[in-house]
């Protein structure tokens, strides 16, 4: 190989690796990202197809938590719509009725959200950003109650 050919081969290899990376990212974006919805978007606008994975965020409705051994069900609400969530496993320490929560999973045929992950946040004052946003949209969020 001449020098020029070698150089071309080198550049070609670099291009191949980079385009491979781009390809992986594109496939990842198609298959592996998870959308975030609010209960309203699911209940009223049926945005997610059955079986599609997505995240849902909102407040845990007061008095909605039911336990049966390791299985729990509770209602996520954005104060406009409610969605029942079933979950088997351990709820995070900070999970509380009336507090923000994000769950990931799929809808089943009975229109119940079956979660495999439930997240609450480290800080008890902290509300997941998605939840704050959707509550703001509903007009239920008061800006800044810091220091209270």
């Amino acid at each position, binding site marked *: 190989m001449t020098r020029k050919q070698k150089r071309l081969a080198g550049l070609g290899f670099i291009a191949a690796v980079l385009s491979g990376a781009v390809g992986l990212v594109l496939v990842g974006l198609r298959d592996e990202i998870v959308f975030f919805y609010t209960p309203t978007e699911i209940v009223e606008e049926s945005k997610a197809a059955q079986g599609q994975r997505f995240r849902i965020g909102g407040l845990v409705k007061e*008095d*909605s938590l039911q336990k049966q051994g390791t299985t729990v*069900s509770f209602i996520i609400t954005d104060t406009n719509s*409610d969605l029942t969530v079933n979950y088997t496993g351990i709820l995070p320490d900070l999970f509380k009725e009336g507090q923000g929560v994000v769950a990931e999973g799929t809808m089943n045929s009975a229109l119940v959200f079956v979660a495999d992950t439930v997240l609450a946040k480290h800080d008890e004052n902290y509300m997941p950003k998605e939840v704050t946003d959707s509550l703001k949209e509903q007009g239920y969020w008061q800006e800044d109650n810091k220091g209270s």
Partner: protein
Amino acid sequence: MIFWILIGLLTLVTVSVVVIPVFGNAKKLDSPLEYDKEIYKARLKEIEQERTLGTISEREYENSLAEEGKRLLMLASSDSNNDVAYKPTSQKSAVLGALFAAILVPLIALTAYFNLGAINTPDQPLQARLDADPRGQSLLVLLQRAENQLAKNPDDGRGWLIVAPVYMRMGRVQESITAYRNVIRILGPTPELQTSLGEAIAVAANGEIDKEALELFKKAADADPASLKPRFFMAIALNQSEEFEKAVPAWQNLIKNSPTDSPWLDVARQQLKLAQGKIGNNIPDAVSNAPVADSNAPGNPTAEDIEAAGQLSTDDRQSFINSMVERLSAELEENPQNKAGWQRIIRSYTVLGRKDEALAAIEKAMQVFEDDKNFMTELEQNKQALVN
């Protein structure tokens, strides 16, 4: 004063640290190439060492030497070696620089501190505050000291006795309950303590007198037949549980035995009237018959609901109950897993005489709780009772 001296001193030291070296003995700079050469020499030494260690082959050694030489040549021919950086230094620019620093440092430091700092605010380490002379100290400080004492010696019953009513007055009810419990645990129960604890528990529950509180009041009343306070709360409890037949004599006795200036008399008279009013129209009551179980489930009436229902006229009450049933039914549509809710609504429909709806509710509940044998039997029994 010391504070300002220190601030001044710090500023002065900082400024001089910046300024003094600027007037140091200015030397001519070596060209960067000289530094490159030093590194070149160090590298050659390393290559020699590697050869003696045998970690590189003879050929690699030769190559490396040639390479290093080439690199030094390249650096030497580099364009930037003779640029401005190596002119002799000028004293004038140093003076300007020093002046700049001498003005800038105090300017920034003092303006920023006057704007941001809490000027000359003393430190307030906790221990020092607590050790300070108790006279002129706020209640909070005294309380904190007592708490610290108790943290060290949690079996100090008298200590708990001191803080318990203070907590109560401050609205820290839960802590007050804990304190009273500790007093009773350590010093043993007295009617007064039991009454106070019961009262605290009731306050914590927004006035609702639960089993534990009631038990405490009963004990206190039994121990001291003359005491009125526990009897007052027991009467309240009777009103709350809508046992008005028992409540009326309880209130009457209380009012009779109370000195005329007792603070509770007004409330007692009012409650008596309420209870007397109830006895007249004692209809079967969907609300009060319901078990209090599973108050967490949605749609179950809260304490306020019950209280509200208690205060309404008969007609209003009827419609209130209807609306509550409606609400419960809507909730159950959404969350059919609420067992207590189903029990409640079936019982309510039955009591209200809405038989068809009761049957329908039973059917629905049966679908939801197919797997729950006990509940299915219960539902089946309810159904039989209705059909017959």
